[in-house]
């Protein structure tokens, strides 16, 4: 239970903090502090158990199918780290209370700080590797938000982006590594993995898994070559830097290395990679720290260097080195956090962190200076301070680790060199800030901060001293507990004492101290050199990530345009080709063989018919660019031939539908043609270029192939032998007895497959609504508007009586077709189209205003009523406990008329009829209204298509 509280406290606290009033620094800080302390207490309460060697566990299933669960597991190492995270967290909260400005929106700050603490504890307590990855990424995310806390500053944004990019990427590598590792072991449980070292080492995936895991760890711990994000992350508020970038988050990488050390270490690959990366970071970080201008930059690079030291130790595959590494983790956390706090105080009190501007602050802020001095000395490895002890152990390990002569000499030498740099930058840090002539022109007058702000730093410095003076009594048990948790029986014997005695490591320390002071003195005397170095480092760092990102994005954009064309023609070409290729691949074996056609008169007439149709189709294809009207008329011809084909092969209903749709489509296109730009067949140069010709040739080939393929496929299916499908047999057999209709197609449409028809009229209605929707915002192209009124119709074209006979005649025919549909060709759809076209003819021969002054058409209501009629026919069946759209019929004996067969399918067909009338009219009239609108002044209202005279 306590385990859960440790992880949950910070998150719950974080959420609570987020809802507090902004700018109430005290409330937030109190809440956060209490949460941190409570968590710390919870950790402390577990000490007895852990000290007894018990591994405290608790788990909760999450996604058992993938082996993912939340398994909390606290052993000595985890306990030590949890203690570190919570105690420094509590100190940072206290510090931040005074650091943050009253203008800052602190709820967000404390909320994410606590969330970060929770995530960190989640990592530390992970007993499941997937869970570890989850919390790992959560630390990246919370750190992102915290770094970007002052997001109005460009450098904050940049720092946050870089940090998340690098650590997030690393996290994904870690995930990959963990997944491989889990697959090797067969479980993601930490215990299982730690127990399977031999299996892991022997597995062929080991190198891949190792490299991926190391990538995760190195990015997180800012190891070379991924160190660059850490200095940029210094844009964060200093409490964040003190916490995340010294004590907690960056330690996650080395934590992971130590955690998995039993399972992964012990191979040459491990030694090679980890040691070289660690050594690189150690030396380069220390070297770079020397040339920083920003105080926090110095501290950041020093952190890189110290983390490199730990990495190097962990890479050495020696239990003693592991002990040293863990010891240094603790030590580094204390002195570095303290230093960051000091840097923050300086920044807070003076308004700058620029080493070039600062100086002589020891007089104004003596306490701060003292604290910083001790912490810096610990960082430099001055005896009687904790940093000295772990560094001594490190130096000792470098001497014994090497197996080849090169390593035997190289390792200690490089370690000493790093020590020299370390001393030099520590000295520089203290000297440039606190000593020397007092700085002038500082943004603020420096003075000692409030005591509460100094307290956390003081506590840490005291710890540095205590550990440095009596290590065995203070840190000894904890270190032993932690190392035992990892090493178990391999735990080496080691002694912790403030003064290890004279031996080689001490000599190295001495060289480092002396060398460091000398180096700094030398650099001081050659200021030009130092400035050059500063400039070089600064220039190298400035915004290279931004530039890289920009260049990458541009490259991606170019690539993306290449692979995702914005041209419709390309897309359609690909679709046609894809379809043809897929069809060819699957069907090329099943194409039927041609049999010699029998030439009969019937065949001949059909051939004649399609000579007409083919000519029309080809004519349409060739004329559509320059002679739109001609193409449209030819298209009409092709449609007519299609219609005749349907009629020819016993599909009267289809023929009816085809011809009515065909004509309505033609009228529609004619209505639209008016708005298209004039195109005159001048041989424009674009047409004659080789490229255009090649494109046309390509399209012609594709079209020919597609046509040929389609013809072959059709032929195959046409001559495909086979019995009539059970469906048609059923429909033929049931149409009359079960549905009372002779026209099987119509019965199919309104009954057997009435659901399709319901969908079909829905589509028609949707389209009509959409047409109206689009056209009421339509802006006619200016050049297509008539400039002046055209020649008015002077002549009466045809006698009015004839014109006025069309509507009633069509009305009768329309209703006839509707009512006859169930037994003969026809039905609601065709009937509706007849009436709608007759209506359009009225518009056509008389004009919009004439028609609309005589009739208020509300096509949308027609559609609504039609849809309701059709759908409620379906729902009506529910009343009889039947399924939707079940046909309900009755025979009624009417006087005069006789026996009438009333069927719900008729109501359904009436619904179809109404929808079709409404939709077609709405579409046609919306289009027709564009002319009306075109004639009005441009600013005149958005015409509602059919909002005709209320």
């Amino acid at each position, binding site marked *: 239970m306590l385990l859960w509280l440790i992880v949950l406290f910070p998150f719950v606290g974080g959420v609570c903090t987020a809802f507090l009033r902004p700018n109430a620094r005290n409330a937030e800080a109190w809440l956060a502090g209490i949460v941190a302390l409570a968590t710390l207490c919870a950790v402390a309460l577990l000490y007895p158990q852990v000290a007894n060697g018990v591994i405290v566990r608790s788990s909760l299933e999450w996604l058992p199918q993938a082996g993912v669960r939340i398994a909390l597991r606290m052993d000595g190492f985890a306990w030590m780290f949890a203690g570190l995270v919570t105690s420094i967290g509590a100190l940072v909260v206290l510090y931040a209370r005074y650091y943050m400005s009253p203008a800052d929106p602190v709820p967000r700050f404390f909320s994410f700080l606590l969330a970060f603490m929770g995530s960190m504890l989640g990592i530390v307590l992970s007993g499941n590797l997937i869970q570890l990855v989850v919390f790992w990424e959560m630390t990246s995310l919370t750190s992102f938000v915290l770094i970007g806390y002052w997001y109005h500053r460009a450098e904050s944004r940049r720092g946050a982006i870089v940090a998340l990019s690098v650590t997030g990427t690393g996290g994904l590598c870690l995930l990959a590594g963990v997944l491989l590792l889990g697959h090797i072991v067969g479980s993601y449980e930490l215990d299982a993995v730690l127990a399977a070292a031999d299996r892991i080492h022997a597995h062929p995936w080991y190198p891949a898994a190792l490299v991926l895991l190391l990538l995760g760890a190195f990015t997180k711990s800012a190891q070379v070559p991924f160190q660059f994000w850490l200095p940029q992350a210094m844009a964060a508020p200093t409490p964040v830097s003190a916490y995340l970038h010294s004590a907690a988050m960056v330690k996650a990488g080395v934590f992971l290395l130590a955690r998995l050390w039993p399972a992964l270490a012990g191979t040459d690959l491990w030694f090679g990679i980890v040691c070289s990366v660690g050594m690189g970071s150690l030396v380069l970080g220390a070297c770079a720290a020397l040339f920083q201008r920003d105080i926090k930059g110095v501290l950041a690079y020093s952190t890189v260097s110290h983390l490199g030291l730990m990495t190097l130790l962990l890479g050495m595959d020696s239990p003693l080195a592991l002990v040293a590494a863990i010891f240094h983790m603790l030590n580094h956390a204390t002195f570095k956090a303290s230093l960051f706090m000091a840097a923050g105080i300086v920044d807070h009190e003076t308004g700058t962190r620029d080493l070039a501007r600062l100086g002589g602050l020891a007089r104004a802020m003596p306490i701060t200076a003292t604290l910083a001095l001790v912490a810096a000395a610990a960082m430099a490895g001055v005896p009687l301070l904790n940093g000295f002890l772990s560094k001594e152990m490190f130096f000792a390990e470098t001497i014994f680790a090497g197996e080849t002569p090169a390593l035997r000499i190289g390792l200690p030498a490089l370690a000493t060199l790093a020590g020299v740099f370390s001393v030099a930058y520590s000295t520089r840090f203290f000297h440039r800030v606190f000593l020397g002539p007092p700085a002038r022109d500082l943004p603020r007058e420096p003075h000692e901060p409030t005591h509460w702000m100094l307290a956390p730093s003081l506590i840490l410095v005291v710890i540095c001293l205590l550990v440095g003076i009596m290590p065995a009594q203070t840190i000894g048990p904890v270190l032993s507990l932690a190392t035992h948790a990892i090493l178990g029986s391999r735990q080496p014997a080691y002694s912790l004492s403030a003064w290890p005695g004279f031996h080689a490591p001490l000599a190295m320390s001495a060289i480092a101290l002396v060398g460091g002071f000398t180096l700094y003195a030398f650099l001081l005397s050659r200021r030009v050199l130092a400035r050059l170095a500063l400039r070089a480092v600064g220039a190298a760092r400035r915004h290279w990530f931004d530039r890289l990102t920009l260049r990458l994005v541009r490259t991606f954009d170019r690539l993306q345009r290449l692979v995702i064309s914005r041209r419709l023609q390309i897309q359609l070409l690909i679709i046609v080709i894809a379809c043809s290729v897929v069809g060819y691949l699957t069907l090329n074996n099943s194409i039927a063989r041609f049999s010699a056609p029998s030439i009969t008169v019937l065949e001949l007439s059909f051939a004649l018919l399609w000579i007409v149709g083919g000519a029309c189709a080809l004519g349409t294809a060739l004329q559509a660019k320059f002679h739109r009207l001609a193409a449209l008329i030819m298209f009409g011809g092709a449609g007519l031939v299609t219609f005749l084909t349907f009629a020819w092969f016993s599909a009267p209903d289809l023929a009816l539908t085809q011809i009515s749709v065909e004509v309505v489509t033609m009228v529609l296109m004619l209505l639209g043609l008016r708005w298209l730009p004039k195109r005159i067949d001048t041989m424009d140069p674009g047409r004659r270029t080789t490229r255009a010709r090649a494109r046309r040739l390509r399209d012609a080939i594709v079209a020919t192939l597609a046509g040929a393929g389609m013809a072959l496929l059709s032929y195959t299916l046409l001559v495909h032998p086979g019995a009539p499908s059970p469906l048609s047999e059923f429909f033929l057999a049931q149409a009359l007895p079960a549905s009372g209709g002779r026209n099987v197609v119509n019965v199919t449409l309104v009954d057997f497959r009435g659901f399709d028809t319901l969908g079909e009229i829905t589509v028609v209605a949707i389209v009509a609504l959409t047409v109206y929707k689009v056209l009421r915002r339509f802006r006619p192209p200016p050049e297509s508007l008539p400039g002046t009124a055209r020649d008015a119709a002077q002549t009466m074209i*045809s*006698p009015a*009586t*004839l014109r006025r006979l069309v509507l*009633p005649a069509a009305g*009768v*025919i329309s209703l006839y077709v509707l009512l006859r549909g169930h037994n003969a060709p026809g039905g609601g759809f065709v009937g509706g189209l007849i009436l709608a076209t007759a209506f359009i003819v009225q518009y056509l021969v008389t004009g919009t205003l004439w028609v609309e002054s005589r009739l208020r058409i509300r096509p949308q209501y027609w559609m609504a009523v039609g849809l309701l009629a059709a759908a409620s026919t379906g729902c009506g069946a529910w009343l009889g406990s039947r399924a939707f759209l079940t046909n309900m019929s009755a025979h009624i004996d009417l006087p005069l008329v*006789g026996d009438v067969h009333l069927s719900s399918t008729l109501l359904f067909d009436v619904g179809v009829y109404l929808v079709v009338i409404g939709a077609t009219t709405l579409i046609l009239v919306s289009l027709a209204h564009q002319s009306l609108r075109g004639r009005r002044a441009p600013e005149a209202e958005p015409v509602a298509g059919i909002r005709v005279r209320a």
Partner: protein
Amino acid sequence: MKRLRPFLILAMVVLWLLLNGTVSIGQVVLGLVVSIVIVVVFRDFLPDEPRMRRPATAVALFFRVLYDIVQSNLGVARVILGRRTRNVRSAFVRIPLELRNPHGLAVLAGIVTSTPGTIWAGLAPDGVLTLHVLDVDDEQALIRAIKERYERPLLEIFK
């Protein structure tokens, strides 16, 4: 219902019965219902009721038109199959009409259109009808023929 339109409704019922191919009472009733519905819905779109007289003249005119259709068809066929399609004397012919009754004009338009060789090309507000004629031998004779054969009976029928 503002105006009853017996002629129109009758015509529509007849059309209905023609379409259905029966004269059962049920169909008559249904036809009446359909026609009345249409008349009510589209009342402002319908032609005025004609006032017709002289059914005998009408019958005679009907058969005359039938005869003329056959004749003119043959005439046009001759022109088409003849050797001299290039020299056909086509022309627009203007005929001043006395007929003003819209129904009469409608029937005249039907007749002119139904007889190949003549096409109704428009009617000016002053009553001058323009026809396009495929092959005009004698323009005046043609005008006379139209006025005599068609316009006069129509004037009699639709007064």
